[in-house]
């Protein structure tokens, strides 16, 4: 009779239970904390790579326009860039466009300037397209002859800063693009640099 009673009332003591609960809560707390941290890390990595791609896209766009340009001008705050590029392709609104020539390459014109040969495109009054890069809110916009293209849009506050340097017959730009990652407060370590030279002789048209 006594034996049965003892077997029925076997259990953990209060101290054992409290220790077990404390351990369980500690493990649960650490698990939750680490899983939240892990999720934040994954989000940060995902966000970082996505913004990295946007930085590369801005660099590519800008470098492409600078390389085919005649001149580049950056604003004092370095955040607006104007590129003058030849009108290599005949477009619908051009004065010399005909239905059969729209979208085809324009024939180059040879001109002599200060004893040097220059190659120009289009008529004298219609040979330059103006490309403008600027920040608008959280977007980086590229405007070519009034046509706006959003080349990057990010809530990470992407900021491209471009400086143009004129040389004897050429010009180059150095661009530094930073952003503010979601994981840290400052921009340190996010900068991507790029250098691009004009392929044409620099000239104002």
């Amino acid at each position, binding site marked *: 009779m*006594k*034996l049965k009673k*003892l*077997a029925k009332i*076997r259990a953990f003591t209060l101290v054992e239970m409290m220790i077990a609960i404390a351990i369980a809560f500690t*493990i649960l707390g*650490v698990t939750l904390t*680490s*899983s939240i*941290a*892990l999720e934040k*890390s*994954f989000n*940060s*990595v995902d966000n*970082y*790579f996505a913004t*990295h791609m946007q*930085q*590369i896209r801005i*660099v590519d766009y800008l470098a492409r326009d600078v390389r085919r340009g005649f001149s580049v001008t950056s604003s004092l705050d370095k955040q607006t860039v104007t590129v003058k590029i030849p009108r290599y392709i005949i477009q619908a609104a051009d004065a010399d466009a005909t239905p059969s020539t729209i979208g085809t390459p324009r024939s180059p014109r040879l001109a002599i300037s200060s004893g*040097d*040969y*220059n*190659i120009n495109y289009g008529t004298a009054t219609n040979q330059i397209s103006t490309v403008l890069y600027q920040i608008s809110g959280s977007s980086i916009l590229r405007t070519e002859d009034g046509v706006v293209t959003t080349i990057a849009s990010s809530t990470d506050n992407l900021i491209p800063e471009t400086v143009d340097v004129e040389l004897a*017959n*050429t010009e*180059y730009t*150095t661009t*530094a693009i930073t952003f503010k990652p979601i994981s840290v407060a400052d921009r340190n*370590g996010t*900068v*991507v*640099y*790029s*250098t*691009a*030279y*004009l*392929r*044409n*002789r*620099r000239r104002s048209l």
Partner: protein
Amino acid sequence: MKMNKTRSVTNAANTLPEVLIAVVLVATFFASIFELNAVCLRCIDASKESLAAVQSVQDRSEVLRNIAFSDLTNTSFVQNLMNTAANPAPFSKKATEVVTISKYPTANGVTKFTRAPNGTVTTDSIATDLGTGLLKVDVQDSWTMAVGGRSRIEQTSSIISNGTKK
């Protein structure tokens, strides 16, 4: 007999090895989670390095293809040019940059420059002849990767012709 049975019930517990194994398993689990977290951060570093390397070789190549042909074939000019890093990125302080210039399409020796991470530039070899028409310019960055300490290389080649901008 009664007493023995009672004692065996009340003293039931885990053995020390069982507890140790449980502790090791829990510790391993948490170590794995935190290591995974650290791997994420190192992946970002590795990504930044790779991108910086791409931009570095592109920037150097961009400068070399835009200098005068006579300067490109001038050993001291190129060596002086390389005293300045390809761009201001901190990556240049951990990468070794090698620029190789040779006549194209048939090389007659190579002119080779190496820029160490500390900024020291050495001329490793000078081509017998670089010609006056076409040059092949290779730019290579090598560094030790943040993840796993592996060696990485980024390289680009350009064919540059003599001539002036139009």
